[in-house]
């Protein structure tokens, strides 16, 4: 191929730049995945500290540790951080690492766009948290109900930071969504048809469809709220004919698919971990795949169950009640599939497996309490109480985070070539599981006893003291468990690189290559015949038609010239384009001289955009 020499603003860095710049300019999906994970874990600690502040405040009646104003900011930022800066990017870390490895590709479809998503996520998180230092953090809850978010009720800039920070994070998620969908649809190894994709890839695909379709809705809602706050429109202002309930509809039309965006990646991880440690194929592959698709589809028809007490009328409440109960069906199917996978398997116990099993248990508890507020009359009792808090922590912590931890223990050898220490892993698992249940189980009682959410204090006479104190103690056990994990990571860094290609006797393609993988992943792109292809390559005698085999591709001999495949060179522009974009969007926050900041951001953005478009295609 002839070399095309494009003019460029800054020369594209060479493939093997070292040091900090090798990370800042990388377009390698593995490095990007690692950075997603590290940054998300940092925010996890921040969000965790916010949670502990909440629990200190509520540990006894009439708490004075935080003022009500600060308390509002802390719980708002706790929710926003955990959802947008922890669970989503931790899932994105796994998408980045595992999607190309599991479908037999050398990278994602658009490596520079991938880097752009990472940096936009980082800067969006920073923009959101700058609000702590400029007078007031967002204080209206992660759902930011109007008219509480309108200027007359919330005149400071906290909510504006929230709006614009979420816009940046939304752009990051959308770009990643386009990228991963294109990758999964278009970059599969030869022979890997859709029904041979690993379940994790299927769940990734469903999640990214949800991201691509749900985020535009919140983008528009945020634009409308921003225009209301900054430019005097009336979208959610009842005095001029606007309607706060419209915000609720728009928000939950995004917000409910969002909760499936949070949980489905963990479900995908569990569906990889259980077969590996049971030495059995996943039980009922088509069922688990179509259940995932069913959840993603039905997830669009349930949003108003967040609004049962708004007064939409019996017809709407009945319809959304039915659809909400309906969505429990595919979820239940999945749970039986996981149990069926374990059933009769040769089970090997590891921390990864324990986290997956705990995921099933905790998710069932959270799922059952979820079904109880699918019925509007019972929901009217539970609305805005700690029962709801207990419910969504069981599905988001007991579900999503335990699932993600399972993935961390499972794929850590692939990421680093080293094992996470098993003994510390068991300790971590035990402390987290116990601490988690001590923290959140009493909240069921608190909620049914009528303790409302989002209150900064409660009086002595309510009978809530003991449960609250227990929950607060539990939260510190939980926090300690997280530190044990952190210690495990640091401790295991010193360990030897003994993982080898395939430490768990794995089933999917990522175990066929060295750990950690070379930067080009696969020397030759594998050809896939079966679902769990690597397993049947190892044990051909076990293969039969029922394993998704059959119409495999014809063997065609690759030219085995052992040259390293050439990968895209690093680039400076993803970093600068997302920096410029964030400064530009942040420039809409009305502080003195903000248009100058906006202009500077636009200048950086335009420059980096031009540079991106005309960057040389390297050879």
């Amino acid at each position, binding site marked *: 191929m002839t070399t095309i020499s494009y003019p460029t603003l800054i020369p594209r860095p060479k493939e093997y730049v070292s040091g900090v710049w090798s990370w800042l300019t990388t377009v390698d999906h593995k490095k990007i995945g690692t950075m997603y994970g590290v940054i998300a874990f940092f925010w996890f600690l921040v969000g965790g500290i916010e949670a502990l502040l909440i629990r200190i405040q509520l540990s006894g009646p009439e708490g004075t540790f935080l003022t009500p104003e600060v308390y509002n900011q802390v719980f708002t930022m706790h929710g926003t951080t955990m959802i947008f800066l922890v669970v989503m990017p931790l899932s994105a870390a796994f998408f980045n690492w595992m999607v190309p490895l599991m479908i037999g590709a050398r990278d994602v479809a658009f490596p520079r766009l991938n880097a752009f998503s990472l940096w936009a996520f980082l800067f969006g998180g920073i923009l959101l948290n700058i609000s702590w230092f400029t007078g007031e953090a967002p204080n209206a809850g992660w759902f930011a109900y109007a008219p509480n978010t309108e200027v007359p009720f919330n005149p400071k800039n906290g909510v504006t930071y929230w709006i614009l920070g979420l816009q940046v994070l939304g752009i990051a998620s959308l770009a990643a969504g386009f990228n991963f969908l294109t990758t999964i*649809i278009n970059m599969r190894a030869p022979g890997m048809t859709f029904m041979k994709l690993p379940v994790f890839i299927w769940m990734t695909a469903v999640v990214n469809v949800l991201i691509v379709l749900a985020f535009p809705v919140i983008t528009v809602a945020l634009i409308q709220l921003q*225009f209301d706050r900054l430019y005097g*429109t009336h979208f959610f202002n009842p005095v*001029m*004919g606007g309607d706060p309930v419209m915000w609720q509809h728009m928000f939950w039309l995004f917000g409910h698919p969002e909760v499936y965006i949070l949980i489905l990646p963990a479900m995908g991880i569990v569906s990889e971990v259980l077969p590996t440690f049971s030495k059995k194929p996943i039980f009922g592959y088509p069922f688990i795949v179509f259940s995932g698709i069913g959840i993603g589809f039905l997830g669009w028809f349930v949003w108003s169950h967040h609004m049962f007490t708004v007064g939409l009328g019996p017809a709407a409440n009945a319809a959304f009640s039915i659809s909400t109960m309906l969505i429990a069906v595919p979820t239940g199917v999945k749970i039986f599939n996981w149990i069926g996978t374990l059933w009769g398997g040769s089970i090997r116990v590891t921390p990864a497996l324990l986290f997956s099993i705990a995921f099933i248990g905790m998710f069932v508890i959270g799922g059952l309490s979820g079904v109880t507020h699918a019925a509007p009359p019972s929901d009217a009792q539970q609305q805005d109480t700690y029962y709801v808090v207990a419910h969504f922590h069981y599905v988001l912590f007991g579900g999503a985070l335990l699932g993600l931890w399972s993935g961390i223990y499972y794929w850590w050898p692939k990421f680093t070539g080293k094992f996470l220490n098993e003994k510390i892993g068991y300790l971590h698992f035990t402390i987290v599981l116990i601490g988690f249940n001590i923290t959140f189980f009493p909240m069921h009682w608190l909620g049914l006893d009528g303790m409302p959410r989002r209150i900064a204090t409660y009086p002595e006479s309510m009978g809530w003291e003991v449960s609250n104190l227990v929950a607060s103690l539990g939260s510190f056990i939980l926090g300690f468990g997280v530190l044990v994990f952190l210690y495990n990571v640091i401790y295991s860094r010193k360990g030897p690189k003994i993982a080898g290609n395939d430490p768990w006797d794995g089933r999917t393609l990522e175990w066929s290559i060295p750990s950690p993988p070379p930067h080009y992943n696969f020397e030759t792109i594998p050809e896939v015949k079966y679902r769990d292809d690597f397993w049947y390559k190892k044990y051909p005698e076990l293969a039969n038609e029922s394993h998704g085999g059959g119409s495999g591709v014809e063997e065609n001999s690759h030219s085995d010239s052992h040259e390293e495949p050439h990968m895209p*060179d690093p680039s400076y522009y993803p970093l600068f384009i997302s920096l410029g974009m964030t400064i530009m969007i942040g420039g809409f926050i009305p502080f003195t001289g903000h248009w100058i900041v*906006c202009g500077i951001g636009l*200048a950086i953005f335009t420059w980096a955009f031009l540079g991106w478009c005309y960057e040389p295609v390297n050879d």
Partner: protein
Amino acid sequence: MSTAVEEHVNSTGVDNKKLMMWIFLGSDCLFFGSFISTYLVYRNRSLAGPYPNEILDIPLTTVSTFVLLMSSLAMVLAVSYVQRGSQVLGRYYTLATALLGLVFMGFQVYEFSHFAHLGLTPRTNIFGSTFFVMTGFHGGHVTFGVIWLVIFAVSRLAETMKQKLLIIGSVFSVIIAMAGTMMTHTLDVIPNIPTIVAFSVFGIGLIGTIGSLYLLKNSDNQNIETIKKEEGNLELAGLYWHFVDIVWIVIFTVVYLISANDGAPLI
């Protein structure tokens, strides 16, 4: 991006970029769908005038809609000519598409400032809020498409990279001038606009100019590879352009044809 990634056989046979454009358009459907739904939910909810029946001018907007539809025809011809190897005709039709898009934008600017003079701004009532924000974001999409097409068309006029970049630099200047003129017409539509525009224009202008000058330092001849790349890009621009047109057909139906007789609410 690189050879290694590009040489990977696509599982579906569809180019990665084209596939991503389709996914993006699916996403954009929800974007405009949300604006249009908001408009419909808030129909007949304005508590103060001017109401749609006092202000909407169907014949005028029919003309601008016709212009936009004709731009889609030009777009089809442009892509078709480029794919059949007729570069010159392809370039002229691309320019024609962009020009028709600009005419459409001219109608919108006229309409916005006309409404503002009749007393309808985004702050007047809920009709104003929904109308200006929805059509404004549609206009933003059209403007982006115009920039894309103009850069494509004129950069093809250049023989060398040096000329190409000079032309891109001048396109930026023209757009800056245009944006400035447009915004002075709509000054009273949205508050704060003059300042943001001043700085946006300044930013784009500065960067466009400095960037182009810097780029000129090391320029090179383009070759067959770049032309192939641009053919692909024109098809993507075409998909985008048709989509934005279709969105306008929906907005035209919903705002003008359906609700042009909406008056004061019957309370």
